[in-house]
């Protein structure tokens, strides 16, 4: 991992180079991580935690493998529906893992992007619907057959 090499360098050059002083480089490094690694990186220190929370990193992660970059109108929609990090967790990761069985080189098609966005939208909406649709305790009687 590039962080390791940087830390080694740091030791060698006797603290001449501090990763955390060069946030732009750090961001470039973080951009190339996958989802789980980003999660791990978030636990390193407060700075890294803040950086990994930035939605632009996750946007990059979501569309890293798309063959053509998505139109600019996508971002406000995604942000309104919950952000790229959520898009990744709720939609992109499951979609990618199920649609691609063993391919190491993941290339999204536009159709897959579209579908993920639609599903993300449905997810947002269902969360807004909230309690009314999911509270089933008052309807337990439905499980018993109706005896007329």
């Amino acid at each position, binding site marked *: 991992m590039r962080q390791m090499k940087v830390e080694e360098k740091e030791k060698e050059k006797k603290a001449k180079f501090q990763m955390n002083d060069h946030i732009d480089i750090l961001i470039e490094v973080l951009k190339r991580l996958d989802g789980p690694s980003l999660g791990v990186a978030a636990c390193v220190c407060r700075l890294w935690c803040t950086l990994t929370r930035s939605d632009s990193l996750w946007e990059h992660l979501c569309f890293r493998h798309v063959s053509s970059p998505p139109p600019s109108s996508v971002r406000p929609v995604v942000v309104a529906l919950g952000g790229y990090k959520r898009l990744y967790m709720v939609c992109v990761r499951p979609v990618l893992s199920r649609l691609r069985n063993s391919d190491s080189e993941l290339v999204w098609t536009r*159709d897959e992007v579209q579908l993920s966005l639609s599903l993300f939208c*449905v997810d947002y909406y269902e969360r807004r619907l909230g309690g009314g649709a999911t509270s089933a305790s008052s*309807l337990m009687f439905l499980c018993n057959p109706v005896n007329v």
Partner: protein
Amino acid sequence: MSPYDSATSAGSSSGSSSASSSTKPADIDGLLAGAGYKVRASDLRHVAQRLERLETAMVNSPVELSQLASSDTVHYNPSDIASWVDSLLSEFNHTPSLPSDLPDLPDIVVGPGINPTVKNEADATWTDNDAPPQQQQNMQSLTIPPNQLTVVTAMEEDSGIRLVHLLMTCAESVQRGEFSLAGSLIDEMQSLLRRVNTTCGIGKVAGYFIEALSRRIFTPQASSLFGGSVSGSASAYENELLYHHFYEACPYLKFAHFTANQAILEAFDGHDCVHVIDFNLMHGLQWPALIQALALRPGGPPLLRLTGIGPPSPDGRDSLREIGLRLAELARSVNVRFAFRGVAAQRLEDVKPWMLQVNSKEAVAVNSIMQLHRLLGSDPNRSPPIEIVLGWIRQLNPKIMTVIEHEANHNQPGFMDRFTESLYYYSTMFDSLEACTLQPEKALAEIYIQREICNVVSCEGSARFERHEPLAKWRSRLGQAGFSPSHLGSNAFKQARMLLTLFSAEGYCVEENEGCLTLGWHSRPLISASAWQAVPDANSPLGIVNHHHNNHNAL
């Protein structure tokens, strides 16, 4: 039986078969002879039964199997299958634990007009000497349908087959009006149900059908509970909840929504004012995806109007408006200009076109998810509701009408036909539901399906609204009403395939059927999606304007 007895019997029968082969070569089945087995053609059925029993016995008692394979066992002439199987069977210590009055397998298959005497439990035995001629006849014409119920264990299988058998007999007696026989069959089935696994497979489905039949037989007036206008404050809410869980538990509704949305999206291309009319709003789960797709379409989103039709909600709640508010909030978040209108109507035929307030400049899409079949019940005094509704839809001149319906024939006049069809259809559907692991979604989805079953089986007349018809019938009906099919494109197909990969188990299949898409389980289509356009009326000017809305009263 000692080995020597079997040997002599094998010897004698092989002697007889060789004798018969020399005197009557036509008697030996030619195809099996080619494989090296000598079986008389007349024995074929007997041998098949014996092989089944042998397999059952082998599966159930592996101990005896190992004994069979031990070195001191004498193996008899296997080319004479009939006696070989008999001798093997006799070596198993226990008699097959099957009820002695179990009917032969070929009787299970049902066609129209089965003679009830064949089904009489007391007569059917394992021997074929006294088999009535009808059984042979059934054997000739039999094909086990490809969507036969999945078979679990040998014992289960027999009880399951027996249950199906009894269900058919009961339904037939209901059709004939023999209610006392039907009632006793219900009792018999209920006792058999106690010995069968009712948490999956045929046991579960049979349970629902038995309940529906008993409703029909014993309490016909109560079956109106599931029909017509259901009163009571919980009902609309219950329906919405069950629908939502059915949406979550299996992909049928998701397929419906996404396919319809794709067709609507394509039809709205280039239009700046669009109006969607939803015949059954429920929780409005279909529309977020369309709103999002419109938000991201090249050229920007249009002004979207949505008119949602749904049952009136009692006790002051305006559920239509609440859903409309949620959808409006979503549309606002993604910058789509949106307007919602709710139309509360207990039945679709009560809706009048002026209530929808369609204006002439907008592109209209009509969306019907499993609603049109409810209009097929007809009162002889009035014109059929389906014609009235299709008439005013056509008057609206929609850019597209999306129709999603069950791919089943549950509207035949004969009760037996409907019963048989629905038994196969809902068995397949329950089969597909087995893959779902989400609870309580799965349980509530089953209740949703159970209500449909009850309506198809136990209701009649205006109370029966689950009048499903297959795609072919809808095609001719819609064609006659002045609609032409609009082919769903390859995008819809691709999307449906992708959706299935995400949400469901192996076994679902999407098929294209002359421009329509069907989703099914193991090559049995269960739900069909199609799109239609109104054929321009030769009498009216192009761009039919609905004049009614000029004089309407505000709702």
